[in-house]
């Protein structure tokens, strides 16, 4: 009997030890280890992204200012935004228009990438020169282009007048018809180097044998580009598109330095309008509603782009 009791007790102990082992599995330990490693980033993400976003969403449904306590406002700000605010619609239209600069930039970057990827002397020098605009501070880019567009001392007006194309200087940044386009050109100029590097990286990942096979199959250079290069560059192109769209939502500093949204609201983007609404006229609650709208519009666009890219935006590996 004593022996049996002893045996039972030992069995229980072993069972408990076994239970502890089965709970504290290698998988769980790995998961904890990964969580510990990720924790600093997650905390920062929570503090500076998720909490402000959540607070913004709450704020967009309230009447709130620094002087008064918050009151529930329901859809008041959204109603104002969609039904009565013409500047909002103009800023939205400009922002969507600004996105086209991404498309133009990508097309140009593909052309440049093809050129500087060819077997030409000094191609690394060309690549470096084209890329050099990217690391410049956006404020510096804005100042450079303000000078280039300047009515009296600007390079473009000087060149156009020198060759006799115009008699009167063009006020690029002061004209309703040219101001946004002028900023888009500056934006493309700055980002094109990055697009080009992304496209070149994509091109480099396409095996050379594919072109050899295609040339034996009878495809000429253009057909090779159209049937092989472009489809295989899809992940790189979508990555550029994503970057371009992010830029169109965040090009605050370039617009701020070059035109500050003017003339009128001709170059007003959602981001500059949000800033002015929040800090120039202190309507933080309305600015929050504008931010929430911008956030969800961008989210939907990003999801659509990712879907069109087959979920592989930025992928450079060719599955062969």
């Amino acid at each position, binding site marked *: 009997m004593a022996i049996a009791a002893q045996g039972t007790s030992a069995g229980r102990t072993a069972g408990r030890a076994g239970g502890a082992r089965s709970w504290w599995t290698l998988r769980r330990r790995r998961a904890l280890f990964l969580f510990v490693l990720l924790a600093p980033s997650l905390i920062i993400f929570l503090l500076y992204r998720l909490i402000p976003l959540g607070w913004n969403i709450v704020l967009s449904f309230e009447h709130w200012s620094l002087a008064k306590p918050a009151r529930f406002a329901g859809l008041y700000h959204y109603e104002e935004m969609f039904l009565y605010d013409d500047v909002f619609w103009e800023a939205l239209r400009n922002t969507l228009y600004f996105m086209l600069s991404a498309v133009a930039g990508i097309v140009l970057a593909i052309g440049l990438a093809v050129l500087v990827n060819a077997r030409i002397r000094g191609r690394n020098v060309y690549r470096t020169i084209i890329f050099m605009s990217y690391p410049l501070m956006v404020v510096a880019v804005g100042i450079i282009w303000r000078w280039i567009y300047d009515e009296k001392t600007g390079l473009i007006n000087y060149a156009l007048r020198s060759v006799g194309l115009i008699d009167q200087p063009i006020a690029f940044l002061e004209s309703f018809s040219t101001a946004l386009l002028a900023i888009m050109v500056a934006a493309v100029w700055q980002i094109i180097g990055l697009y080009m590097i992304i496209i070149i990286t994509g091109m480099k990942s396409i*095996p050379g044998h*594919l072109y*050899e096979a295609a*040339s034996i*199959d009878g495809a*000429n250079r253009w*057909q090779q580009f159209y049937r092989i290069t472009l489809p295989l560059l899809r992940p790189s192109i979508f990555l550029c598109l994503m970057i371009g769209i992010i830029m169109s939502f965040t090009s605050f500093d370039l617009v701020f330095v070059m035109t500050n949204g003017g003339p009128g609201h001709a170059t007003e983007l959602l981001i500059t309008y949000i800033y002015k609404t929040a800090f120039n006229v202190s309507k933080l609650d309305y600015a929050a509603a504008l931010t929430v709208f911008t956030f969800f519009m961008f989210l939907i666009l990003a999801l659509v782009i990712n879907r069109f890219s087959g979920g592989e935006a930025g992928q450079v590996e060719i599955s062969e």
Partner: protein
Amino acid sequence: MAEVRIAGLRKRYGSVEAVRGIDLDIADGEFIVLVGASGCGKSTTLRMIAGLEEISDGEIWIGDRLVNELPSKERDIAMVFQDYALYPHMSVYDNISFGLRYRISDRAEIKRRVEQAAEILGLTPLLDRKPRQLSGGQRQRVAMGRAIVRDPLVFLFDEPLSNLDAKLRVQMRTEIKRLHNRVRTTFVHVTHDQVEAMTLADRIVLMRNGEIEQIGTPDEIYSTPKTAYVASFIGAPPMNLIPAIVDRSAKPMVRFGEVSLPLSDALSARAGPDGRKVTVGLRPEHFVTLGPRSGASASLPIKVDVVEPLGSDTLLFFSLAGVEGIARVPPEQAVRQGERMMLEPNLDRIVLFDAETGKAL
């Protein structure tokens, strides 16, 4: 179908000459295998035939056309690459039909040809798949399908089996052979694998340092190698090459230190003067094992260092005259490691090479 004629073909990369003036006539419908070690110039030669490399000097004729200046697409050739070169974003159907789209406008004809090629290669159920959804062997078949739909004058294969595992390689080798039997077009196949060369070729072109070392049927290359290099390259395990000296003090013999072997009359006539340094070539299968104290005059005393049973036969490794030798004996012969025995070579199968030039005597 067409014959291929190569005359004085050279390829230079700066100061390096990769192909050094080769001449080769390939008959219509012949299966030629270019074989050699890495860097011997075989792939460069193939790529020059394909038009993927410029020719530094010489001529390439396909049929009655000099193709030196013609771009690849106008040479009417098809090529299968080592890494298949399938277009990863296209389906199997689109991969196979890619080359036809630039040659044939009739879609029904394209479809008919693709389906016929897919039928031959067993690809019919896979036509909608992308290359990444296929196994290595299936990808290789798609690459072959892309070549055969074109019905070209010449098929070029650039080490097409190198990326496959051993079992699949054997299987695909047979498929290539079967394809050649079926289409009877001129095939030029590059490989570094001598077994592939032996099994596939009507004639083998063995290359070394940018030059042709020997051209011949597999049997000629195997049995009567023109140089010691060819002898050592072809055959698995390769031919035994044992340094020896011609000894004419009594009857004509070759001597390896203390041991000597008599020479046949035919070999004696070519062996040269007494004291000449030669290399004796003997295939591993041209030995018969005898007991430890055999009285046979033409036998070599050896001590077996390693025994490798292969199932179909057994390899015996031994040392002779300072070099390692290999004998292939029947599997039922029980030989132990460390055993001393006499090996009797088949004297009629001995090949002699000049020790300095390596050329067959």
